[in-house]
């Protein structure tokens, strides 16, 4: 896609909206490559608008156009088309501050991704796209404050794990209704790869809605069609139009339990894994308002780990914990039964990859802002059993290598399966006494608030490296759904066992679905959990469930009596 942009001279701003309308109406559909049959209104903008990765004075804008009825997602059909875009300070576009033109085609599935620059920092903007006489819905977005600014707060909606087949995205709808957020942090599993009947609602995997295409996504066309389906969900469309997203992927954006060279849900019959992942990444790059390889260009690289800053208040390091990791350790016991497999602590194994870990260590070390937030797709807090002090385990392992360093984990797909990376990261934090490190996590379809012990066996007598807040799933099944038991019955037993053996886990809810709101001020970071009603109900209500916070410098979480709003 070629992209041009230009600033709008101040004196032309007020006249610009009308002029643009007249000009584009005159050029009409033909010059834009839009085909519509007489008497039949063709919808060019069927997938909404979105924005993402807010930075000081710039933000990524996104849409997808359907220039002709046959130019369906993944079809490879439809002509190339010029798409105009504009950014204004007001919803009626009387104060347009930036505009430009981008060309898109079937080669990129007719998606449009713009890095809108030279905007005012810490400012709400409105944006829209136009193809001929067709105008997109208006989106609203926000630019981050300058590095030298001292914002009073940063408030993010926090979500993960949205399986369309498992229910309606009411969590998104309730977030979209709020007017107090700055952005949405999506921690992965934005979409799922499964075909109908493979992973749905509850123990019986009932499809509340069925995936398109009607099979597991494997080809590029599959991935594009699935993205397109999700982008047509009204709740997700509303949230995208309302706030900029900051996203990372977990495994299902490619396929279940993916690692660097394979995945649990990839079989040889599905072809070369690397090629499949490249297709998935390509579609992700096309369909999400995200900077990959540091740019809004599509296809110039797939590096997803990146850093965003919000004045002196906070920086956010977004991780990619799938692309570079070693294969999960095979366990002799099925998850979630704890395993004593010592390979989880093998220093040669990594969840981040060396380059990403070095980048993260550097980002934390150099950090100028107060809060060091980490967008972390899988849990970093150890959740283990039968722990021994590291002062005892390390010498034993130096000789024998027979013990997992932080105890027997119940889930080796998390950082618990790669404990040496965690050890290095936590040691780095301790050696430099880095303060106010907060991991924000998804993946596990449950709500957690945890301290991060340097030595789990001796905690709380030993130090904490920071805290972790884990959001629940938007719709994906959790423990009660899997066991088929009523809420707050069997889950309470499991939660009790985990917390009794992991004193740093202060809050745990295995039963609910919903969203979270993170509010960061100079004094504290607070996470509020909201739960939704039945996922089958497209109008499910939401209610506040719990709030936990960490005071600056404290490195531990405490309960809070009420949400920030």
């Amino acid at each position, binding site marked *: 896609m070629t992209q041009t942009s230009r600033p709008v001279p101040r004196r032309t701003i007020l006249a610009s909206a009308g002029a643009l309308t007249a000009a584009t109406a005159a050029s009409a559909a033909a010059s834009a490559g839009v085909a519509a049959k007489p008497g039949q209104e063709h919808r060019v903008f069927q997938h909404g608008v979105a924005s993402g990765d807010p930075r000081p004075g710039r933000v990524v804008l996104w849409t997808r156009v359907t220039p002709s009825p046959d130019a369906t997602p993944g079809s490879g059909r439809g002509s190339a088309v010029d798409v105009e875009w504009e950014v204004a300070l007001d919803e009626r576009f009387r104060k347009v501050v930036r505009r430009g033109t981008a060309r898109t085609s079937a080669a990129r599935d007719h998606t449009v991704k713009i890095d809108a620059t030279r905007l005012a920092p810490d400012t709400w903007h409105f944006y829209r796209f136009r193809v001929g006489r067709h105008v997109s819905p208006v989106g609203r977005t926000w630019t981050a404050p300058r590095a030298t600014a001292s914002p009073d707060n940063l408030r993010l909606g926090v979500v993960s794990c949205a399986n369309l087949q498992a229910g309606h995205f009411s969590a998104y709808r309730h977030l979209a209704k709020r007017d107090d957020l700055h952005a949405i942090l999506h921690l992965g599993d934005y979409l799922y790869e499964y075909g109908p009947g493979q992973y749905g609602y509850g123990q019986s995997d009932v499809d509340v809605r069925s995936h398109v295409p009607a099979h597991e996504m494997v080809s590029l066309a599959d991935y594009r069609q699935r993205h397109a389906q999700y982008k047509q969900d009204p709740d997700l469309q509303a949230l995208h139009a309302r706030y900029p997203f900051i996203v990372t992927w977990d495994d299902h954006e490619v396929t279940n339990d993916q690692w660097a060279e394979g995945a649990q849900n990839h079989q040889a019959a599905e072809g070369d894994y690397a090629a499949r992942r490249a297709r998935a990444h390509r579609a992700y790059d096309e369909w999400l308002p995200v900077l990959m390889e540091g740019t809004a260009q599509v296809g110039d690289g797939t590096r997803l780990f990146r850093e965003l800053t919000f004045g002196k208040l906070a920086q956010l390091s977004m991780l990619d914990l799938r692309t570079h990791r070693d294969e999960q350790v095979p366990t002799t016991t099925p998850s979630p039964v704890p395993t004593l497999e010592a390979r989880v602590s093998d220093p040669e194994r990594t969840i981040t990859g060396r380059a990403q870990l070095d980048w993260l260590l550097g980002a934390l070390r150099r950090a100028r802002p107060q809060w060091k937030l980490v967008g972390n797709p899988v849990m970093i807090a150890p959740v283990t059993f039968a722990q021994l002090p590291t002062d005892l385990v390390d010498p034993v392992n130096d000789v024998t290598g027979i013990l997992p360093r932080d105890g027997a984990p119940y889930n080796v797909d998390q950082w618990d399966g790669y404990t040496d990376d965690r050890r290095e990261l936590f040691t780095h934090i301790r050696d430099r006494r880095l303060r106010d490190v907060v991991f924000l996590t998804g993946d596990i379809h449950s709500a957690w608030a945890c301290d991060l012990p340097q030595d789990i066996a001796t905690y709380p*007598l030993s130090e904490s490296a920071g805290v972790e807040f884990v959001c629940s799933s938007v719709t994906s099944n959790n423990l009660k759904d899997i066991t088929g038991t009523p809420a707050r019955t069997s889950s309470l037993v499991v939660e009790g066992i985990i917390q009794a053996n992991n004193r740093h886990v202060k809050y745990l809810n295995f039963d609910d679905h919903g969203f979270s709101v993170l509010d960061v001020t100079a004094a504290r970071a607070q996470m509020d959990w909201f739960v939704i009603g039945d996922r089958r109900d497209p109008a499910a209500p939401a209610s506040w469930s719990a709030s936990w916070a960490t005071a600056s410098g404290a490195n531990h979480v405490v309960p809070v009596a009420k949400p920030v709003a």
Partner: protein
Amino acid sequence: MSATLDRRSFITLAGAGGLAVTLSSAPGAAARPAADRLQRAYVLVLDGCRPDEITPLLMPRTSALRSSGLNHPYASSVPIMETIPNHVMMMTGVRPDRSGVPANSVYDRSLGVVRDLDKPSDLKARTVIERLSRDGFTTGTVLSKEYLYGIFGTRATHRWEPAPIVPVSGHAPDAFTMAATLAMLEQHDPNLMFVNLGDIDRMGHSDVTGPVDLRLLRQAALASTDLQVGRFVDALKAAGRWSQSLVIVLADHSMDWSRPDAVISLQPAVDADPLLAGKVVIADNGGADLLYWTGAAAQHDAAVARMIAIAQATPGVLSAHDPRRTTWLRTGPVGGDVVVFCRAGWRFSDPALHSNPIPGNHGHPATKPIPFFLAGGHPRVPRGASASAEARTIDVAPTLTDFFGLGAPKGGYDGQSRLPRRR
């Protein structure tokens, strides 16, 4: 009109609790500030205190004071995270390459000895104390440690010589320091008082329960010092000074504890190297070692590279730096040719393994976080607020000059005022 003194004079007062306190004053100094100089600023240094130690349970008065004003939860000591350089940075507002005071302990090339920077002439930069005096304000120093008393010398209008001194620690207990503070407050009521309370640091250094995270001695000191902070606040309010006052509470560095087996001794390693043997002197600063090349100038660069390589290969070392190339260090020529930091939970012991037996140490990056907050009743002090900007010890002098309306000195400050801008 205030009475003036025509020579440095000494007075002995009965301090609170019946303790005798001897204060000295500069020749010609006014016994009390001029009546039109209403502002009062107090810098209370809780030596070695960690920000996470100020809790409502352990330090209720200090915690309440912090909540009442403008807290900087993200505050830092500046390398080298030691007592003397950070107190100097508080009062000068400039980094060690400008003040000449990079560490507690340095190698004095002219004398050929490792010594503390405790002489008034060691401090090359002008302090805010002197700047205030020049502008007609009065000042006072109440510093519990002998070397602080030494380096700040007679710069203040009024000063207290720490006494009684605890053997080995070289400091006066906080009860005596606070008695002197209150006595000076009552007798001279200076515009600026610079107070160091040393118990928290000294108990931390010697707390053998520190490495196992019990910190029994330390916690007792924290509770005790908190009482002294409370006495000070009560006295200010009783004297009717609160509404005119800015109270800056901070630490110079924090504290980290090491086990007996987590000790680094670099001197034997450098002495085993053919190039370096006998030509490197180390000034041990607990969590930081300063290495000085004493050999031929022509071999300086090679020696620096070799010292860094040896240090980086030593277990427990976090990092080793050539200050000429590590621009953020700014330790200057006095601070050695190589600066080495240890990891958390370790300490240096040079020149020999038995040279530094104490478990509590600082100087390394793990001891960077400090408490830092502004309190007091002056209208310029925000109430119940927090700021995300990183505050540093070096910000104290700019804050004071902002408060007193002095403006920046020649060459400017390296720090910045933490008071909200005047409207």
